[in-house]
């Protein structure tokens, strides 16, 4: 079978499917509505896991960038890029579920809540990182610049997060927080959904990394062909002079 699958991804993939299915069962059916939030608490079982996956993605991007700058490893460069893409995708989910959750809770889709605001800025920041990875520059130049930004981005993330928190903190208490009572079944649903999404994230990351790896291989093959053609040009010229 020609695909990016392997034994490992089958195992992780099936684990993700099973975990997601049972987590849906718990999140939507078995767990009770919360006292103050009502059924909208169920969005939390979606919101929190997506946050976990996106932060893990950015963490891997940071790690990969550090390692790439140390030893120019193609593996870590590509992994950093793949993880950032998944981080951005899941940050989009965080924003969407956050604002959908906000409508019944706050009455609006958007609230200048510190986390929501900081997450949006962070989202755009990592879109910039992905744009750097697509820059029209020689490969090693692009990778090095992306790695530098992948590292700085974490510092930015912290600054943005705390400055926004401070900014809103002066006006009002935190609005989005799990300060409500979650009973055993709810906590279990939350735990299960986080586990399920981590499996899903890992599975996506492996596949996305392999796609990036294959893209690099295709690029290398194209280069090898171009090199041969170029040498052909030189060969034709040499035939006339009968040398080498």
């Amino acid at each position, binding site marked *: 079978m020609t695909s990016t699958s392997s034994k490992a991804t089958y195992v992780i993939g099936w684990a993700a499917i099973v975990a997601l299915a049972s987590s849906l069962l718990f999140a939507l059916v078995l767990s009770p509505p919360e006292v103050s939030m009502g059924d909208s608490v169920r969005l939390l079982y979606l919101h929190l896991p997506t946050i976990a996956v996106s932060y893990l993605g950015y963490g891997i991007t940071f790690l990969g960038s550090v390692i790439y700058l140390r030893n120019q490893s193609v593996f870590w460069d590509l992994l950093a890029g793949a993880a950032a893409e998944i981080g951005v995708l899941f940050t989009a989910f965080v924003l969407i579920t956050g604002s959908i959750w906000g409508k019944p809770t706050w009455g609006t889709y958007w609230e200048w809540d510190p986390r929501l605001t900081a997450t949006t800025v962070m989202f755009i920041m990592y879109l910039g990182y992905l744009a750097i990875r697509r820059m029209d520059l020689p490969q090693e130049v692009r990778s090095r610049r992306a790695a530098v930004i992948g590292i700085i981005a974490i510092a930015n993330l912290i600054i943005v997060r705390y400055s926004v928190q401070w900014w809103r903190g002066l006006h009002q208490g935190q609005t989005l927080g799990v300060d409500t009572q979650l009973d055993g079944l709810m906590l279990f649903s939350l735990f299960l959904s986080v586990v399920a999404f981590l499996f899903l994230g890992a599975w996506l990351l492996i596949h996305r990394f392999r796609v990036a790896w294959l893209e690099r291989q295709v690029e290398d093959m194209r*280069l090898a062909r171009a090199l041969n053609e*170029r040498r052909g*040009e030189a060969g034709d*010229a*040499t035939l006339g002079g009968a040398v080498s």
Partner: protein
Amino acid sequence: MVNLSGAISLIGGFPALAGVDLTVADGEIVVLRGPNGAGKSTLLRLCAGLAHLNGGTGTILGHDLSSREQRRRIRRETGLLAHQTFLYDELTVEDNLIFWARANRADPSTVEPILDRLDLGGRLRTVKISALSAGQRRRASVAVMVCRRPKLWLLDEPHAGLDQTGRDFIDDIVRHAVRFGATVIIASHDHERVSNLATRTVHLVGGMVTGAEDGREEGQNVS
């Protein structure tokens, strides 16, 4: 001086150099010849430590091209006269020269005689680069190169766009540089002129060296 073996260099995913073998000894004046797109400019940029060595091995002035640290030293010790002027259009000839002299840790007072020698003294000194003719700009670029005192001179079409006196200037300067121990590589289409200078001509086609001739003797391939 220059020692390249199977050197590959990519420009935007295109193998501009597809495996160049080239050895240049101390004090040589090597002329690179070849059609447009043969990789002459990239070869010069590679020797200057600017283009990336993507395959093969190379040492320039005894420094390894594949080491980032040593490439920095190569850049300091070579001089490149390229199609780009390497000058700030918005500044005057004098300001440019003084800035680049300082940037290269050369004595700014050496700028004066160089300007005079290149006919850029007097009125032209206070003219902005953008107001100069192509030939005058080229002279200003040469002036910067002279004040850097590089050990390896890399000249990309140095005679292009110059008048007769300008061409003679370039030749004089090249001969002068060699007399003071420099090595020169020139990429040029102006065969007649450079063959008077060259100690060796190297042919470059399709990003590879396809032949070489010694000195001014024609048709003797020794690759």
